[in-house]
């Protein structure tokens, strides 16, 4: 068999096994490559770190099982950071049907009930259907939109919401998603009320968000597992994200090698398809 012939074959099974191995081996035996911290991530860290007592943080979430691995580590890292700031009020709201489960899970994992008082320091409003209309309603007047919070408590019984009506009272909003709700926050809160917005996104969503970032419309982006790993390091709480970065590196190398080999085959094999 000539080299050209060898490269010309379709090594589907071998490629799959190689990818699997390139992920598994570094997970079991980490190499410990340094994780660079993006400026977009650091911008969010600094903004959260500078929050003052009385400020209101809204964490929107459309986390579902499909994007859990990418976005949940960001969500929990930033939530932890917010909880460390004394007197900062936190509102959790969900834009996807699966998101409430992950919001509750994060609260349990961070022992929110033991550290803070529900209704005074933080609330979980739950999932609101209706896409852009839901976020628009929340920004207009959340008391008019909602009767009860996620656990069924009447909104009027939650004292921290007494002086919070809509987007003009939110200090910052960070939305964690792979869907269009980040755009909805931008359209409804930033464009309409000038509220400061940032996103925690899956990698695929980042390129267009970056154009918003460079135009100064959002103040930061946490980008996929990479950004989560950076944030974990910034707050000194390394977790799953930091652990997975070596596997990322090796698998990336594999893809690049595959692309180069594929092109070699193409050019050596007379450019046939």
């Amino acid at each position, binding site marked *: 068999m000539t080299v050209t012939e060898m490269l010309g074959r379709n090594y*589907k*099974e071998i490629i*799959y096994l190689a990818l699997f191995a390139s*992920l*598994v081996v570094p*997970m*079991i035996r980490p190499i410990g490559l340094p994780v660079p911290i993006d400026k977009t991530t650091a911008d969010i860290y600094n903004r959260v770190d500078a929050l003052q007592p009385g400020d209101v943080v809204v964490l929107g979430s459309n986390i579902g099982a*499909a*994007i*859990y*691995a*990418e976005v949940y580590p960001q969500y929990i890292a930033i939530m932890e950071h917010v909880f460390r700031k004394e007197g900062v009020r936190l509102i959790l709201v969900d834009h996807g*049907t*699966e998101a*409430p489960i992950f919001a509750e899970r994060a609260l349990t994992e961070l022992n929110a009930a033991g550290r803070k008082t529900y209704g005074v320091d933080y609330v979980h409003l739950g*999932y*609101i*259907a209706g*896409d*852009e*209309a839901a976020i*628009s309603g929340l920004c207009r007047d959340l008391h008019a*939109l*909602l*009767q*009860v919070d996620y656990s069924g408590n009447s909104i009027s019984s939650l004292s921290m919401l007494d002086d919070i009506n809509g987007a003009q009272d939110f200090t910052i909003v960070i939305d964690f998603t792979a869907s269009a709700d980040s*755009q*909805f926050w*931008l*359209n*409804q809160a*930033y*464009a*309409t009320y000038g509220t400061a917005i940032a996103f925690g996104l*899956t*990698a*695929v969503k*980042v*390129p267009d968000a970056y*154009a*918003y970032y*460079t*135009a*100064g*419309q959002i103040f930061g982006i946490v980008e*996929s*597992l*990479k950004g989560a790993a950076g944030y974990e390091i910034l707050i000194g709480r390394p977790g*799953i994200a930091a652990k*997975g970065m070596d*596997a*990322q590196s090796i*698998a*990336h190398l594999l*893809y690049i090698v595959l692309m180069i080999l594929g092109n070699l085959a193409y050019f050596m094999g007379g450019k046939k398809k």
Partner: protein
Amino acid sequence: MTDLIMALGSTALILMIYTILYRENPAFRIGEHLMVGATVGHAVVLAVFQIRDLAFLKVQQGMNTGNLGQMAYVVPILLGVALYLQFSKAYRHIARVAIAFMLSVGITLSARGLISVNVIGQIKGAIVPLNNVQNIVYTVGVVCVLLYFVYEERLSKAVGPVPKVGRWLLMVTMGAYFANSIMGRLSIVIGTLDTILPAPNLYLIPVALLILIADAWTRSKKKE
């Protein structure tokens, strides 16, 4: 015990899905149907809670206090029910009213926000003083791509080779999307590995591989 069921169960389900990489098979189909049933059932549960919290509670309160605005939430409830008439040939036109309402709110909210954020905001973001090479490249580039999206025959001919350059820049942008999507998908696989790799879940991997090899072997026998 429940923890063990959870750990082994999740691992088995993940492996069942990954068998599609070998070929389409009943294990994958079972996984897929479980998943569709579960997500759709989940959506129904949330829909019920939503309708209760956002509409029925308001109507109820309106009845008690005599607030007409709150009682009016009967209307969206009726419109919501009308959505289901889409499936009826005879009454489909009634559903049009509900769709029209939802669509009009959605597209107006979307358009009015996008004009501000995407059109005005991005034009503003694109305006930079042309005092260095980078800024000049950016300005020329963004105009080239914009002109690629011009379709009228005479207009697109008048701008000459500019759209071609625009398409090249779009390809570079698509390269960025491609690279990022690789990072995203890998992160997801890493998340599943976090479930699979701890013992005893790990031991299911050789089991799955053995089944696949056995299947490949019987299939090659059959071919002979």
